[in-house]
């Protein structure tokens, strides 16, 4: 058993889930919508990478980003904007994102089949270098650094630019922000673009370690990230990111430490911990204390 190895794995998985968590948290902040179809953006990016494996890497990655951003905007335009216009209940919105996720999976199944495709882009990052007897694959380093940089960039965009101010205002109080002249469609569109950029980055990074692309590959990613987001606290981006990071770390760590005999019940342990956290801190592990008891809208 090698602790250094386990920590290295845990960090990179944590960074990956942190990115997914920010993508989900950003859209939730602005729209109060948990986008369950977020994982299908990642799947779409992975398929693009699989079908462009022969291309030069920068070109393939650019194609992946373009496709994922386009799909993210399409989701917003076709599915979520009409819902928002009608003032649908949160339950209906949530089930609608489920339906979109189901539909996209069905389309992938119809278009690409069940067998799965292999991504070859950036495969060379799987080679390793050794530090103190710990094998570190390049991709771990790349994932952790890219993850940190993207999180930093998102934070800068939100805190240091005009449009970021608009996004934050809309996230805080959508109606008042609109009255004060924030353009709703622009802000929401932009947050979907940023979410799309993050999803595309996850497609690129994730497929290096897990090159098999299947129609349903996005589902477990969304579920774990969503669990992380809710456990961390949905209302703030950094707490959502931290929650996603924590869930990824726990998974990476236990996946390495436990034997396969013990690790079959790992999901139960993680879900059990989630329930405990939600009972003790419904607003999230990293949310500020003294949350309001009753919220009237």
């Amino acid at each position: 058993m090698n602790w250094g190895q386990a920590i290295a794995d845990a960090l990179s998985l944590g960074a990956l889930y942190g990115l997914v968590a920010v993508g989900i948290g950003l859209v939730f902040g602005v729209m109060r919508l948990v986008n369950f179809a977020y994982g299908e953006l990642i799947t779409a990016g992975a398929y693009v990478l699989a079908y462009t494996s022969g291309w030069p890497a920068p070109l393939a990655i650019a194609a992946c980003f373009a496709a994922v951003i386009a799909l993210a905007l399409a989701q917003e335009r076709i599915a979520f904007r009409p819902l928002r216009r009608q003032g649908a209940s949160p339950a209906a919105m949530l089930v609608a994102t489920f339906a979109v996720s189901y539909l996209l999976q069905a389309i992938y199944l119809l278009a690409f089949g069940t067998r799965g495709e292999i991504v070859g882009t950036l495969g060379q990052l799987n080679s390793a270098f050794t530090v103190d007897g710990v094998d570190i694959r390049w991709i771990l380093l790349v994932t952790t650094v890219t993850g940190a940089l993207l999180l930093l960039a998102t934070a800068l965009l939100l805190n240091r630019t005009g449009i970021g101010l608009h996004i934050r205002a809309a996230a805080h109080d959508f109606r008042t922000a609109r009255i004060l002249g924030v353009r709703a469609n622009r802000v929401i569109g932009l947050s979907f673009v940023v979410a799309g950029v993050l999803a595309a980055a996850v497609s690129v990074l994730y497929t290096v370690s897990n090159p098999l692309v299947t129609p349903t590959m996005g589902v477990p990613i969304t579920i774990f990230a969503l669990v992380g987001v809710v456990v961390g606290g949905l209302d703030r981006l950094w707490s959502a990111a931290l929650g996603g990071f924590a869930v990824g770390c726990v998974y990476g760590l236990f996946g390495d430490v436990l034997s396969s005999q013990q690790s079959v019940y790992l999901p139960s342990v993680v879900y059990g911990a989630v329930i405990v956290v939600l009972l003790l801190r419904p607003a999230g592990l990293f949310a500020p204390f003294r949350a309001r008891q009753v919220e009237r809208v």
Partner: protein
Amino acid sequence: MRRAVPELGVPVLLVVLTALIAGGISQTQQLEFENALVMVAIVVALYVFVGNSGVISFGHVSFVAVGAYLAGILTVDPGTKHFTMPSLFPVLLHSHIGTPLSLLLGAAAGGVYAFAVGLPLMRLSGLPAGIATFAVLGITYNVLYYWQKVGPTAQTLSDIPESGRWTLAVGTVIAVVVAYLYQRSRFGRLLRATREDPAAARASGISVYRQRLVGFTLSGALAGLAGGLYVHQLGIITPTLFYLDLTFVTLAMLVFGGVGSLWGAVLGALVISALNSFLGDAENTVHVGFRLTLPTGTRLVTIGAVMALVIILRPSGLTGGREFGLRWRR
């Protein structure tokens, strides 16, 4: 009383009609109609909690699973069980009961499980409630998949006696009637009050927690019953059957029909089931005036698209959350 006749009568009539039609058609189509009956039972069980409380639950399929596994294992011949699942708990291993009793026990198990889960979880609402109930589903699936003392794990559970369409129809009608009686009862009304405005309900002296717990437990019992029906309809099950797909499909059926009404739950389950089975047939050529053959895979895409479209264009569902009425109001 005058309202009760169409409000309860029409959903029950639809269920009976489905069972009647199932008698006069080919073997495969009969299976699809029976499956539609079971789907109605599951969606009605889901409606009892989600519809009346307004809190979304992703965990109901775990109660369906518990009911299904208990009802299934108890009706399998002990001789077979000694051979296929030797490490079961002794009670499960040696018992052998009839189908009606197994359905009852399935319902009881679903109710007890829901009560135990609801005891801590009903304090939550909104998204945390959704995620916590989802965590329950994840745990149930994980345990059923690996624990050899409670079932055949990842293997299929087979040799379960199959029930005819009338047993299924009676079970489903019971679920519909119980759901209706509950929503017209004092408890149902109190829970609906908490749905409309939790703060005002609390101010009027209603314990939101207690009303949700009552609804959740009843809903879990009906889900257990529906699970029993499901296992006796299929005759063979695996844990994967009771996970994300069923959770999504039943929730979508409920929202599709209209989350706020019993009539919507029944209608949503039947319409989606009908569409599903028609498209399934059409993938193997069907005659609708002309020969129609759809490429394999169009079924899922079409179902997904129809559900997404209806939910997006009409978030309150086909029925708009109203019960069936003879006069059209407004």
